[in-house]
Structure formats: C-alpha cells, structure tokens
C-alpha cells in the first residue's frame, strides 16, 4: 500500500507532466482501439459485400473451372445440393452460371460477361442489383458503359450471342430491366446480370452451374469448406472466400499491413514519449533517490517504486483511453463516417477494393479481444518504458545522486 501511496503522490506532485504522460497513453489507446475497430469494421463490411457479390462465405466450383474459367467445366446442381444440406449453418445459397458473349444492338456489338443468377432471389441482397424489380425471365441488368456504347436504355431489347453446350452459336433475346452504374470498371463496361434458368436453357446447360455461393449464418468458412469437401465428389470442390476471392483477401491483408505499420509507429511514439516523461520525472528526483538509497532502499526497491508509478499511470490512462474509445465506437458503429465527400474530392465515384464495391460509410465494430489486447499491450509498453529510467537511476552511485 505504501508503494502505491508513494507512487500516486509522486504522480500527483507534478500534475502537468503526469497529465502529458496520461494523455499520451490514453490517446494512444484511444487512437489504436478506434482505428483498429474501424479497420476491422471496414474489413467485415468488405467481406460482407464481397461474399454477397461473389463467392459467398464458402463456394463450390468445378476444380477445372476454378483454375481455367472455361464455360464447359460445369457442375450438376443436383450433385452439389446434398453436400450443402450437410451444413447446419447455411443462411442462403445461390447458383450461378458465367458465360461470355457479344451484346448486340442495331448499331453495334460489344463483348459482355453474363452472370446468370437466380435474379429474384439475388436482388434481395446482392449489393450491385439490390432492389431491382424483376418482371420476366428475359430481364437483364446491364452495366452503364456497355449500355451507353450500345446506345440502349432501360426497356429496350438486346440480343446476346453466346456459344451453346454443343458448340453452336446462338442469340438470346433479353429486355433491359435496369442499367447500373457501380464505379467498378469491369462491371460498368462489360457485365450483365441475367436469369439463370433462361440463360442455361437457351445455351443447353440446363441444371448446370459454375458456382454455388453459400452464405453462412455465423461465418466459419473454413469448417464449412472442410465439411463440404467430405461430401463432394470431384471435380466439385469447396473453397473459402479467401481462396475464391484472392484479390479481396490480399487487398484486406495489404490494408491490414498498413494498419500494423500505423500501430507500430504509434507504439514507437508512445514508448519514446513515456520514456522521455518518466526520465524527466526521475531526473528531477535524483537527489531524492540518492537519499532513499542512502537510508537503505535497494536498487530493486527503487525500480519497484518507479514501476509502480508506471503501473498506476499506464493502467489508469489505458482504461480511460479504452472507455473513451468505447463511447466513440458506439457512435461510429451506428452512424459511421461518411466518406462520400472525400471521394468526390478525390474524383472517385465509388470505392472498390479487390473487385468489390465498398459502401462509402465506414462503420466501426467492437472487437473485445482486439481492443483489450491493444490496451494491455500499451499498458505493458508504458511499464517497459518506465523500466529504463529505473535502470538509469540504479546505475548511478548513491553519492553521485546525492551530490546532484
């Protein structure tokens, strides 16, 4: 108790310096936790958007199609559905068929990638086509640039020429239900979303799919992948979203590295700041430490005294920073930060990352493990930082300290 009392009064003795030190530690915890949770929130959003636009949390492909993307490498939907039923945390799953063709208007034809999907089901959740009213199986949703180049608008008819299963070329007639502008070049310039059965039937691929995208209720793509692979027969194979959307996974990993670098910089700042402030505090009291050593305090007890100051300051500042971060986090998770204005300043229409369009409002999440871990790390760091002045004072002769 006396160590605590002594340390507390020493902290209180120079309030300004202690306040600076407190602010450095609390500010670091606050900044670190808020940035960490914002980044994690953003990654979760990217993954959520990505899994809805692309592979789901886990996807089933024909191994060869996964590697080569040739239309002929399909799967029979009846072969994969029993394996999906083995999973107990499936939220929804979507069947998709991908084919390339030429979209033709009266004036010209342009290459287009058709994503044939269960449109009526997907418009409920797919970030790019959400809310589209589907009226007929001939409906097609077209990227804005391809529509403009073909000089076609909503309600107009469109023919897509594509290869059939038996190697013939055929034309499929569509009606443009909606023209979408996403800001993702590959979607706007050359992608169309059409009805799965209509496309497959016209091309002679009835019952065939390229991708089964499965959304899980509570994540766990790796376990789901493992279960699926136990029940799927080659060439069908399950892949986690990280394998299926490597670009997105590496974009997140790359961004995370940036965050780690930022955190590292923060760690260096807090370490230098803490060492500096504690050094000043210790150097101001060299004579006092000399006297304490003279009356019988051991170097270990001197270290204990300085470290106790570090513990009190580090812990109280760390907890304060964490609490403020929690409050700010509650706001950021409900309201988010709208970056649309910033995007306009940067001349960007939308943000896409790894081929996934990102919602322009960054919402934070609260990750207890990461937030506490970070706070504990900063507290630990401030303790390590307080060890240096303790070591310095103990390296001096008692008489030398008393002469100062």
């Amino acid at each position, binding site marked *: 108790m006396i160590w605590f009392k002594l340390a507390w009064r020493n902290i209180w003795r120079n309030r300004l310096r202690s306040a600076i030190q407190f602010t450095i530690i609390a500010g670091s915890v606050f900044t670190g936790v808020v940035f960490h949770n914002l980044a994690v929130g953003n990654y979760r959003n990217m993954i959520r958007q990505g899994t809805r636009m692309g592979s789901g949390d886990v996807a089933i492909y024909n191994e060869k199609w996964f590697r080569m993307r040739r239309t002929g490498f399909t799967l029979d939907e009846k072969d994969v559905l029993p394996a999906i039923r083995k999973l107990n945390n499936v939220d929804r799953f979507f069947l998709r068929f991908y084919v390339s063709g030429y979209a033709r208007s009266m004036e010209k034809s342009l290459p287009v990638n058709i994503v044939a999907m269960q449109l009526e089901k997907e418009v409920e959740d797919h970030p790019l086509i959400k809310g589209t009213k589907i009226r007929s199986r001939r409906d097609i949703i077209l990227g804005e640039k391809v529509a403009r180049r073909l000089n076609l608008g909503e309600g107009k008819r469109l023919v897509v020429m594509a290869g059939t299963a038996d190697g013939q070329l055929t034309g499929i007639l569509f009606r443009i239900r909606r023209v979408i502008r996403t800001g993702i070049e590959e979607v706007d310039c050359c992608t169309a979303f059409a009805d799965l059965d209509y496309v497959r039937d016209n091309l002679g691929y009835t019952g065939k799919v390229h991708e089964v995208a499965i959304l899980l209720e509570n994540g766990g793509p790796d376990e789901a992948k493992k279960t699926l692979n136990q029940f799927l027969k080659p060439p069908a194979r399950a892949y986690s979203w990280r394998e299926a959307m490597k670009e997105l996974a590496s974009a997140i990993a790359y961004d995370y590295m940036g965050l780690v670098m930022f955190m590292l910089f923060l760690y260096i700042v807090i370490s230098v700041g803490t060492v500096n402030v504690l050094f000043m505090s210790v150097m101001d009291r060299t004579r006092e430490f000399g006297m304490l050593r003279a009356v*019988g*305090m051991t*170097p270990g007890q001197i270290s204990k005294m300085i470290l106790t100051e570090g513990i009190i300051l580090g812990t109280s500042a760390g907890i304060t920073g964490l609490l403020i971060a929690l409050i700010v986090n509650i706001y950021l998770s409900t309201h988010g930060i709208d970056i649309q204005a910033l995007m306009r300043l940067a001349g960007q229409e939308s943000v896409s990352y790894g081929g996934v369009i990102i919602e322009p409002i960054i919402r934070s999440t609260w990750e207890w493990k990461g937030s506490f871990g970070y706070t504990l790390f900063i507290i630990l760091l401030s303790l390590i930082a307080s060890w240096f002045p303790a070591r310095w004072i103990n390296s001096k002769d008692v008489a030398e300290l008393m002469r100062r």
Partner: protein
Amino acid sequence: MNPIVELINVSKIFRSGEEEVHALRNITLRIEKGEFTAIAGPSGSGKTTLLNVISGIERADAGKVIFDGQPLEGLNENALSALRLHRIGFVFQAYNLIPTLTARENAEFILFLRGMTEKERSQKVEEIFRELGIENLLDRFPHQMSGGQQQRVAIARAIAGEPDIVLADEPTANLDSKNSMAIIQLMKRLNSKKGITFLFSTHDPLIMENASRIIHLRDGKIVGEERK
C-alpha cells in the same frame, strides 16, 4: 568489545579528468558504541566523504572500513543497503524528507522497508514523535514545516529503526542558532538516554562544544582530536 566503526588508513580520491582531489588521506579512526562525536573542519575538509565512506555510500580507494567487526569492502550494493537500513540512521543537512509523504509516513517508511507491520510502524513512530515532543507534526507534509521542525522529523526518522549509529552530516547547517542548539540538545539527550551513538559533522563551534569527542579534519587528514 568491537568499536562500532573502525577506519584503518582509509583514503579516498576524486578524479575529474586529470585532476585528483584527495578527499581523505590515511584516516585511522575508531568510534566506540555510545559516543557522541563531532567531526569538525572547514568546507572541503572531507567531513561528508568520511561519513559516506563509513556508511558504504562511497567506497574507500585504500584502507579498511570496518563496521561492528564487518569489513565493508566485500559487501555488494544490496548488502550495503541492508546495513544502512538496519544499522545506520541518517540525518542530512537539507533534511531530505520525502516531500510527498507526511512526517509520520517519512518515519514509517524506513520501518516499512525493514518489514514491520503497519500497526508496529504506527505505534513505534507515534512513540518516538511523542518522546521528541513533535507529535503535533505527525500529519504534516515537509512543505508545511519549518527547517527546525523538518530536522526534528529527520532525527525521528533516523532513530525510528533503533540503529547502532546515527550519522548526521551538518545537521544544523541550515538552521538558525536557536534551532541548531535545540537539535544538538535533542541528539545529546537521545545519546545519553537511549545510548544511541552519534557521529556528526559540523563547522559550527557552538555545536562542537556539546560533543564529547571532536575530531578535527583538514584537507582530508585528521589534524587533531579532543575528548571531554
């Protein structure tokens, strides 16, 4: 019976670049238990260095320092700390109370380091403060006390652990003559009543008069000795 402190041909040299200052030159000295001894001499004569060498705060460059039969040369920092904590009381010229602790806590701190319980500490300190007639200062912080009061508390702190010897480095140098006299009388009373050995440095003739033994130091050498 062993003397409490014995110095045999002790020398101490301070080096600053190429310059050497002989702070102590071949000092041979015995302090017996129960003595009330003053080390007298002008500034720079080596009084503080002598007290520091006796307590192990500074190590002698030559000669032997023996504390109650135990040579100090072989002791490491922790052993020297333990020796000072358990067997030596200190009174400094600038009082050197811990500014963030009250008078009671300052005195209790030494006992805490010795491992005494809170109750024992409290009892002991209150008893000593009462004995010294300064119980009214118990809960005051150093900045709330005069120099004389602080030095009385410093003496209380020094004797709280019942040391074998109290080393006082110019304990009255920062005090006026009235307070100086009061402090020296207090030390003398503790010496005669409790048998505590006092070794103190001073250059004040008025203070010297009260010592039973005066060792005169000049340029690091003992130049004379008086016993009363």
